[in-house]
């Protein structure tokens, strides 16, 4: 009994984890409302409900069926489809189909974890890196260039490809970092615009001689040789795309935990982010901290880009990280969702990846547009960013001061 009470108290005292989970619930509620408001079948059922006795039951059933089907297909499309899975267990066949949802979610989560950690590091320093997408693009281009234009044995070639990706991102991070440190140019403007520079630079490369696939007029690169690819975890024959990029993502997570929680430079990042005046008075070199933070962030964003290419497509074309595939932008929201901390970011990435992958499945199965997944993602972030709202809705006790700061940590200029 005392245990239950303890749990209840913990729930009521609104820890950041509670807030995140409740935000997920609220996000799903928002999604359900939108499904209801946009599905003619449900609306018609309710219209009928007011004309004939007993029909509200029917309308309710139609509502639950539709919303349920939508959310079920998100889950079955991103994690596991129980009947299919059971079929595999009993017959030993169809494992590819059973594991594809999870594999796809992980595949998509890999670069997202890396890019979100990149963004989170600048947030912790009190800086905004809106340019992670551009940095990831540069990383991808640099990686593909080294992979396709240099000839080396694999033991050297793959590491060098990944390093090239980091280097590409570092260049992308250095520009806003140095500009801010030495001219005061606001990093939000610089990084935001830099995304366009990176996109068009990529197009330029894809249409120019060394990188473009020979005898092509389209913007498409050569394909990375096998030795530079991040191979599928279970072999090419498995048909599952989840690849050794997962090792890279884990390594980045461990690095980020060390950097932010255990390293001296990370301590200086956090002091600078939380109180720049005290940082200065404590002898922390503001310029060096700012530039270092941007270099590390850019480098990781670049690594996210190269990990994505090397693990999945193995070439890039003009759609690389464009539009809804722009993980560098999704990373900003994921970082916020994960409170700019590595472990939180890993969970946030898995959730977003699942919604992304499951959303496509939902569209295929129920005809509800994939964009609903994006709406749910956005709603979750809005709720996480306004813990006061969540608290009011669920009548939680006064938030700890710490959790109120979630939204604002790292938002200083």
């Amino acid at each position, binding site marked *: 009994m005392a245990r239950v009470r303890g749990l209840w108290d913990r729930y009521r005292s609104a820890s950041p984890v509670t807030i995140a989970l409740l935000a997920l619930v609220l996000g799903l509620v928002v999604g359900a409302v939108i499904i209801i408001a946009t599905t003619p079948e449900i609306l018609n059922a309710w219209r009928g409900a007011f004309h004939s006795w007993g029909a509200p039951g029917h309308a309710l059933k139609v509502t639950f069926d539709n919303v349920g089907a939508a959310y079920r297909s998100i889950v079955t499309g991103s994690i596991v489809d129980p009947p299919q899975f059971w079929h595999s267990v009993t017959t030993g066949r169809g494992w590819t189909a059973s594991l594809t949802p999870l594999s796809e979610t992980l595949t998509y989560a890999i670069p997202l974890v890396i890019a979100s950690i990149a963004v989170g590091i600048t947030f912790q320093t009190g800086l905004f890196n809106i340019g992670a997408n551009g940095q990831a693009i540069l990383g991808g281009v640099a990686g593909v260039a080294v992979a396709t234009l240099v000839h080396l044995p694999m033991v050297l070639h793959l590491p060098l490809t990944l390093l090239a990706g980091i280097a590409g991102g570092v260049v992308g991070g250095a520009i806003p970092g140095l500009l801010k440190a030495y001219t005061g140019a606001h990093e939000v403007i610089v990084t935001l615009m830099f995304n366009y520079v990176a996109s068009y630079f990529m197009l330029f490369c894809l249409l120019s001689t060394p990188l473009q696939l020979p005898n092509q007029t389209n913007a498409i690169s050569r394909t990375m040789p096998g030795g530079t690819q991040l191979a599928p975890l279970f072999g090419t024959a498995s048909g599952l795309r989840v690849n050794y990029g997962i090792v890279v993502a884990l390594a980045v997570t461990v690095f980020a935990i*060390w950097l932010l929680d*255990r*390293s*001296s*430079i990370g*301590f*200086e990042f*956090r*002091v600078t982010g*939380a*109180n720049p*005046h*005290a940082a*200065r*008075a*404590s*002898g*922390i*070199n503001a310029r060096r901290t700012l530039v270092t933070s941007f270099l590390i962030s850019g480098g990781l964003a670049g690594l996210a880009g190269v990990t994505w290419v090397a693990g999945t497509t193995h070439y890039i074309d003009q759609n690389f990280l464009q539009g809804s595939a722009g993980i560098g932008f999704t990373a900003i929201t994921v970082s916020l969702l994960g409170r700019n901390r590595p472990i939180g970011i890993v969970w946030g990435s898995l959730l977003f990846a699942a919604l992304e992958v499951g959303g496509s499945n939902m569209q295929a199965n129920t005809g509800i547009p994939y964009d609903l997944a994006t709406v749910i993602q956005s709603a979750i972030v809005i709720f996480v960013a306004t813990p006061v709202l969540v608290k009011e809705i669920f009548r939680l006790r*006064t938030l700890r*001061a*710490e959790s109120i*700061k979630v939204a604002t*940590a790292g938002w200083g200029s």
Partner: protein
Amino acid sequence: MRLELRGITKKFGSLTANDRIDLVVEPGQIHCLLGENGAGKSTLMNVLFGLLQADEGEILIDGEPVRLANSGDAVRRGIGMVHQHFMLVPVFSVAENVVLGFEPTRSLDRLDYARAREDIRSVSREFGLEVDPDVTVESLPIGLQQRVEIIKALGHDAQLLILDEPTAVLTPQEADALMAIMRSLTATGKSILFISHKLKEVRHVSDVITVIRAGRVIGTVPPTASENELAAMMVGREVSLVVDKTAAAPREPVLEVRDLVVRDDRGLAVVDGVSLAVRAGEIVALAGVQGNGQTELVEAITGLRHVESGSVLLGGRDVTNRSPREILDAGLGHIPEDRQRDGAVLSMSVADNLVLNTPRRAPFARHGTRNLRAVRDNAETQVESFDVRTSSVDAPLSSLSGGNQQKVIVARELSRPLEALVASQPTRGLDVGSIEYVHREIVRVRDEGHAVLIVSSELDEVMALGDRVAVMFQGRITGVVDPSTSREDVGLLMTGSTPAESR
């Protein structure tokens, strides 16, 4: 308004900040709350102002129990509060700040500034709170910013005003002006709950004094009680209110400034040719009315402000215009004037704040990796020896009372290997017991053979602590005198005139 608190209890986790507190404030009364750092004064005031909810107990206004769910409720019930740390928007004008949150509007939601200005003028006139409604708050000296806070607090016809350590940041002159204002407020029947650690002014202005220790009411006494009695009630032991120290044995100069010229943000030479040498084994106290260049002088010494001309020497090394890092590493300890701005990171733990400027130094880090165990051990030791009241060394600094935050900073600076120590207002906001302790520590630093420069607007502190007293006026040192010099003469130097005897 008659206010009564009955059995107020407020807990933070396992810590009981207020323990069944009973308190009565009669109309027209100035009621002072006295208590150690962390005794629970601010917590009680926050409960009264609706910012915190009591776990037990009730609040009665004119005999009627009320529920104050938020500060809006408190304001509607006629309670106004001026917080320990100001809550103004620096870039807004006085008028905008005063109406913030309760904006008077005309049709179509347009702000009615004319009315706001008129309201401010009438409050100003009635209580002698002169301030121009149209200037921006950041351009005002602290004393006037506080008036803005008071006007804001009075704005909604408050009958009870809560002043949480209003005099901690004021010059003695400003504090006197505040006392006069408080008197004029109570003359119209308003009551005031007043918190201060300065026993002199507490005895001077209060009608009743309630002493709190560890969240409990220890007793209620008339202002005729002696300072020693009050101090003993607060701390629970005898406290020495004078600094006991032996004569200084000064040796070679360690911290020296020569012909220093420093400009402020507007480009005025606020330090205008200052030369001063602090020798090993002595305490030089820098006196002066706030705003005569002391702040900028300290900033120049610590590397936080550009030196226009002249030089700063530390241990014989020229550190003029060096980075704060180099100056810290050269052995300068610095207790900054604005602790929350420059001295601490409120969102970080006590332990982290205790290594804020030495995170890379052994044993706190090796090869760029922090040794969190060493950081913790250090924190345990410091918290113990400086008697910092905190639930744990992992608690964020923001959860500590104002005085305990200051103790964390003092502990950090005094526990580092030092050549010289520069301390600005080192005991601001500390209770008498802690002041005694900090003073003793500063004397210890001196006796270990270091140079100490104290900047304080408390004449008492300056005279008690200094082995020599330097007086600053309009950017220049107008005299360096012995602490036995009469207060009148030091006062004259502070206004730029030369006392008869030293002429």
